[in-house]
């Protein structure tokens, strides 16, 4: 293990460090809160010669991601970042560049979507992109942000994968929170991540190539889409190989999921991103009074690690998926994915869906208590209620007050 100095970094700074250590050569950018600090930092590093290559401010995220994909299709390593409205503004380009099979890395700093327009996080932005052909890694800590970006390039550039990756971190809770982060040396990072030298993506005079070409005929289209699916499934094994090498070199190991005090747990919470830290704290409190509760953190969202989820939740009495997102008219998004993963388990746990933390709303100790109660009740009765929308009495009082000021009634 090489020398790694430690610094207090925000999640955004950790993301910028990830791009820097990955030697990203091209960064097209567009500002949006809470991501902006990432591109500001990179702009500075390109301007003072710390990073080599080019930083360019584009006219929109739609243009930004097109430029990012086109540059990667020409043969350079590309990094870019956005949030929320920006990610959705680039929506068609997500699918487009994934189909180009370009292994760029995009950091999304989660922020809830309008309307109403807001700044604080939930995961409707990044999960809207879940079908686009990007792999997705969701991070809990600033350290994990830096590490995941380095790993993301290595996974993406693997010839068995060749798909872009979104590395997600929560706005505010992670983007602007400082934590101690071990920063690998440039040499160590370079030894882990060799230069990007694609054989499939180039533009040069001696070898004309058509990329992103149109097809007519479902069987041709399906062929290319199936290739994306197979490549994404390959990424499960590639992720584990890359994670193992990362652990060897840097002493930090990451699985597709993280099991926290889950081994002997009867009840489990399923969470992702920064609020998993709150979930773990709740688990610790439950454990102190002898409750057998654990937590499963979803880290690799695409490809979805079905087997890891099955193994982690096997034998639990009840599981509550705490979604910080809302598929309006359906419920929690990751709930559906966990449910699909567990469906064929011979004895599967009861599975509850809770929605919480939308737009950065706190998930309080009381709400975690309520979730545990719901799980116990379900275990006792065998009855599983529909999606539970978490909201505290205190919040209700405050909201009623605001509605009163606005001249509206609760309802």
């Amino acid at each position, binding site marked *: 293990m090489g020398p790694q100095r430690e610094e207090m970094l925000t999640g955004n700074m950790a993301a910028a460090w990830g791009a820097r250590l990955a030697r990203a050569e091209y960064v097209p950018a567009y500002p949006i809160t809470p991501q902006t600090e990432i591109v500001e930092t990179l702009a500075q590093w390109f301007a003072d010669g710390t990073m080599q290559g080019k930083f360019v401010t584009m006219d929109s995220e739609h243009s930004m991601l097109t430029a990012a994909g086109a540059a990667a299709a020409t*043969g350079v390593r590309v990094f870019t970042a956005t949030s929320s409205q920006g990610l959705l503004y680039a929506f068609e380009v997500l699918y487009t560049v994934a189909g180009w099979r370009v292994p760029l890395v995009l950091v999304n700093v989660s922020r809830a979507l309008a309307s109403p327009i807001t700044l604080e996080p939930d995961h409707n932005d990044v999960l809207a992109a879940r079908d686009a052909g990007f792999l997705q890694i969701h991070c809990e800590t600033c350290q994990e942000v830096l590490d995941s970006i380095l790993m993301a390039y290595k996974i993406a550039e693997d010839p068995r994968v060749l798909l872009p990756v979104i590395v997600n971190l929560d706005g505010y809770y992670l983007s602007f929170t400082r934590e101690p982060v071990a920063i690998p040396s440039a040499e160590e990072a370079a030894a882990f991540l060799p230069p990007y030298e694609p054989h499939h993506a180039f533009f040069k005079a001696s070898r004309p190539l058509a990329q992103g070409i149109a097809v007519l005929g479902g069987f041709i289209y399906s062929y290319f889409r199936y290739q994306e699916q197979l490549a994404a499934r390959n990424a499960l094994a590639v992720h584990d190989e890359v994670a193992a090498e990362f652990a060897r070199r840097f002493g930090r190991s990451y699985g597709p999921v993280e099991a926290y005090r889950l081994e002997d747990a009867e009840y489990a919470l399923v969470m992702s991103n920064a609020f998993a830290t709150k979930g773990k704290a709740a688990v610790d409190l439950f454990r102190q009074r002898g409750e057998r509760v654990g937590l499963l953190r979803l880290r690799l969202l695409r490809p979805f690690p079905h087997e890891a989820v099955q193994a982690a939740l096997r034998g639990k009495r009840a599981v509550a998926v705490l979604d910080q997102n809302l598929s309006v008219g359906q419920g929690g998004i990751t709930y559906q994915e966990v449910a699909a993963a567990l469906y064929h388990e011979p004895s599967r746990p009861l599975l509850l869906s809770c929605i919480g933390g939308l737009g950065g709303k706190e998930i309080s100790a009381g709400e975690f208590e309520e979730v545990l109660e719901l799980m116990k009740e379900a275990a006792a009765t065998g009855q599983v209620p529909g999606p539970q929308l978490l909201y505290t009495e205190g919040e209700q009082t405050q909201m009623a007050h605001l509605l009163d000021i606005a001249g509206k009634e609760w309802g």
Partner: protein
Amino acid sequence: MAIEHAYKKLKEISLEEFILPGTSTCGGCGGLEALRLAHKVLGKNVVFVNAAGCFTLLALFPFSPFKGSWLYTTMASAPAGAQGIRDALDLLIARGALSIEEDLQVIVLAGDGASYDIGLASTSGAIYRNLDFWYFCYDNEAYGNTGVQMSSATPYAARTTTTPAAVLTPEGTELPKKDLFEIWRAHCPPYLATVSPRHPLDLARKFEKAKAFKGPKLFIAYSPCPTGWHYDPGQTPEIARLAVETGLWALKEAVHGEVAHTYIPKKLKSVEEYLQAQGRFAHLFHPVRQEAALRKIREAITQYWAPYLRTMQNAK
């Protein structure tokens, strides 16, 4: 850079074809003819960055009629695709990963809908950033690929599938054509020109001249479209000739924003000859002559050419 060809005679235009025949475009497609001519001047070392439109189906897996390279992007962001490719080529060449002989000219290929409407911001961005690229807009004055709907390049009084000539809208399209030349010119690009496939020497000279400039080199090609404009495909050259001779399509260029007309008709032909040759204007004549609409069209032409009238008269 020295100008290699003066393009004084047609035979100076290369006989080499860079777009091979047998594509999915309609017979008589004026835009493809303009592109074919332009390509002869540009040579083979190009990468087209395409926006959704008729020409997207030129390259259709596993075939491409182009001798050069191709990237289909989206409808709205081809100029940003050009940015990514240009920047990446520059980076690769600068660090020695790609030899200079491997360099390509990056050319956005987009229709009028992509250029005048949905991709305008992306284009503005690329010009503003002084990107070293070419832009070839084939202007068939409608959203062709989706079945000839009105775009902001559709001229006043043309009938499209979304601007029907009907009881409440007897003239069809009610709004005048957007002036993309002037919008682009406001960015002060090094080189900007209009071209027409019926004026191959003028076209070739302009592409040749543009080679000397680093930065945006922008072209709007008049692109008669038999399918959308409702005329016989064999009439494309004649339609294109009339567009210029009636003064509807001005052949001009702007070097660093300074405008010059490269061809000024000696006398403007009657615009009715042009209009009557195309089904998209038929409602202006049948069942009744729409006098007011015709006057409006004539007046717009007169107004445009007024500053040059003396030149025209002197030339007489």
